[in-house]
């Protein structure tokens, strides 16, 4: 079976002037992650590579380009999960790291824990040679101008040729959040979940709503009961809107290669690489495509 990778760059009312950069960004990340899969890399390698590409891109609210909290600092959250073993790594409120998703992977692979927070997460980073970056290098001009930027997040899901699924999600959180606020992104079952028996999910949108309904895990519970990934996503986002009045977006992939990118916000930049085709969109119902190999 062929590998599939889907990425998102955040679900929110992306302004028109940011739309082209957002679409370019997710397409580039999808191409990058997909090439990892093509050369035999695992789903885990692919989602990490794709999310790193998004973290490095200042267009997105993760890593470089992240939002400032109320104290004017950058606090980052990320999660990565391996559907084969259910192993997971997460960091919350880690400061001044360029690639939180890689730190999350290190938590998973180099510690016996699943999640590290705050100072402890930073200390761990240092201990494995990941250096802190000065705040002003991480904060873009865009952020410094008080542009009303809503909450966005980046993420990826993948299934590799061996049928293993994985997910990764990374964020700088909501603008002007309280110091130490932890949203859905690093919380397993909320910001993301991956299980070879059902699939992998990465979520974005209103963090507190995603937490209330454990959105990622909810979607997979529908898949477990026989729903398609598209229906499972739609039902779950609908439920989140009805029950807690929250909007968001999700990307899902099943172990057999079914995939979906769904959102109830105004826009979500997303891209999927499957069977030599690159699919992408940003507006509701949009599904553009082009050849994957350029």
């Amino acid at each position, binding site marked *: 079976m062929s590998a599939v990778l889907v990425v998102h760059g955040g679900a929110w009312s992306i302004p028109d002037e940011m739309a082209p950069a957002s679409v370019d960004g997710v397409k580039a990340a999808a191409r990058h992650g997909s090439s990892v899969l093509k050369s035999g890399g695992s789903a885990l390698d692919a989602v990490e590579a794709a999310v790193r590409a998004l973290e490095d891109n200042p267009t997105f609210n993760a890593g470089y380009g992240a939002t400032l909290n109320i104290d004017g600092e950058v606090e980052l959250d990320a999660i990565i999960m391996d559907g084969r073993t259910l192993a997971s790594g997460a960091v919350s409120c880690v400061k001044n790291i360029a690639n939180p998703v890689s730190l999350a992977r290190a938590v998973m692979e180099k510690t016996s824990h699943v999640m590290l927070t705050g100072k402890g997460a930073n200390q761990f980073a240092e201990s494995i040679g990941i250096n802190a970056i000065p705040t002003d290098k991480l904060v873009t001009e865009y952020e410094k101008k008080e542009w009303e930027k809503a909450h966005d997040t980046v993420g990826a899901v993948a299934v590799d040729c061996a049928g293993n699924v994985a997910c990764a999600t990374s964020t700088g959180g909501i603008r002007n959040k309280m110091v130490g606020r932890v949203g859905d992104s690093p919380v397993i079952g909320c910001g993301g979940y991956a299980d070879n028996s059902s699939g992998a999910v990465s979520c974005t949108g209103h963090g507190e709503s995603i937490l209330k309904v454990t959105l990622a*895990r909810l979607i997979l*519970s529908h898949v477990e*009961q026989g729903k398609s990934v598209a229906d499972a996503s739609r039902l779950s986002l609908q439920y989140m809107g009805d029950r807690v009045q929250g909007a968001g977006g999700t990307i899902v992939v099943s172990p057999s290669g079914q995939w979906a990118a769904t959102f109830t916000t105004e826009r979500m930049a997303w891209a999927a690489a499957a069977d030599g085709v690159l699919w992408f969109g940003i507006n509701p119902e949009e599904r553009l495509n082009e050849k994957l190999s350029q």
Partner: protein
Amino acid sequence: MLPVVVVHGGAGHIPKERSDLSTSGVCSAVRSAYAVLQGGGSSMDAVVEAAMLLENNPSFNAGCGSVLNLKGEVEMDALVMDGKTLSSGAVSAVRNIANPIQLARLVMDKTSHACLTAEGASQFARSMGVPEVPQESLITEYSRMRWKKNLAPDANPVECQMGKMGTVGAVAVDTDGNVACATSTGGMLNKMEGRVGDTPCIGSGGYADNMSGAVSTTGHGEAIMKVTLARHILFHMEQGQSAEAASDLGLAHMKSRVGGLGGVVTVDPQGNWAARFSSRQMAWAAAQKGTLHYGLYTGEHFTQIIEDAH
């Protein structure tokens, strides 16, 4: 059938000489929580009351009596969730406060967020007038002794962890049919600084939904997280399994899929409840229809009329 409250004081292997303390602790907490419910208090009031008492009781791994991290310091996690609105409040890796569960509730009630961590949680505590307490007031001889023992290179913290009282928690349904859960812990013995376990993670340490029920979990935190145990159990209940069957299915799944042991207290909106565990023991107690139920070892189920003297 209503109201009902079920409390746990941690799953694991409790040394015999400490087992009386654990049993009396959970019984005492459940009596107080039940009195809150009988007096018209909400399920949230009841679970917070139970968790606070257990945090204040030095025999449990929460608040005072918390296990120590690798550096010999106390970092605590807590979660509350309201089944009616699905609102929740959590704190992770918070230091120097006596009652993390109280702070978690304040996060839920007084902020638009669901979780605050570390220094941010402390800042918030200060802004709410929650007193800062010296770390020493949270550390017991027993927890210090276990920490020292676990610094030895051949020590196995997960196994030794199971030898200490675990996380505390409670679930309840009030007379209005609202469910709630609360879970609080000092975490894992000799954990890395900043390690966050299942307790403050919604869906793992606990979950509450008026449509299906409430769960509070204890046991090996990382394993509980991998299977999002609380949410997993409620998925089974949504599909028609009883509180007891769903709890057993969840614990079995955790054991077979990721090799982890633990325990849960579970309640459905009608007041059916269960206290189940795959570890050797779990101190638990429940109160319903004027009767106290409690146990420690597998298969134990003692009862007592609540008007009895202690």
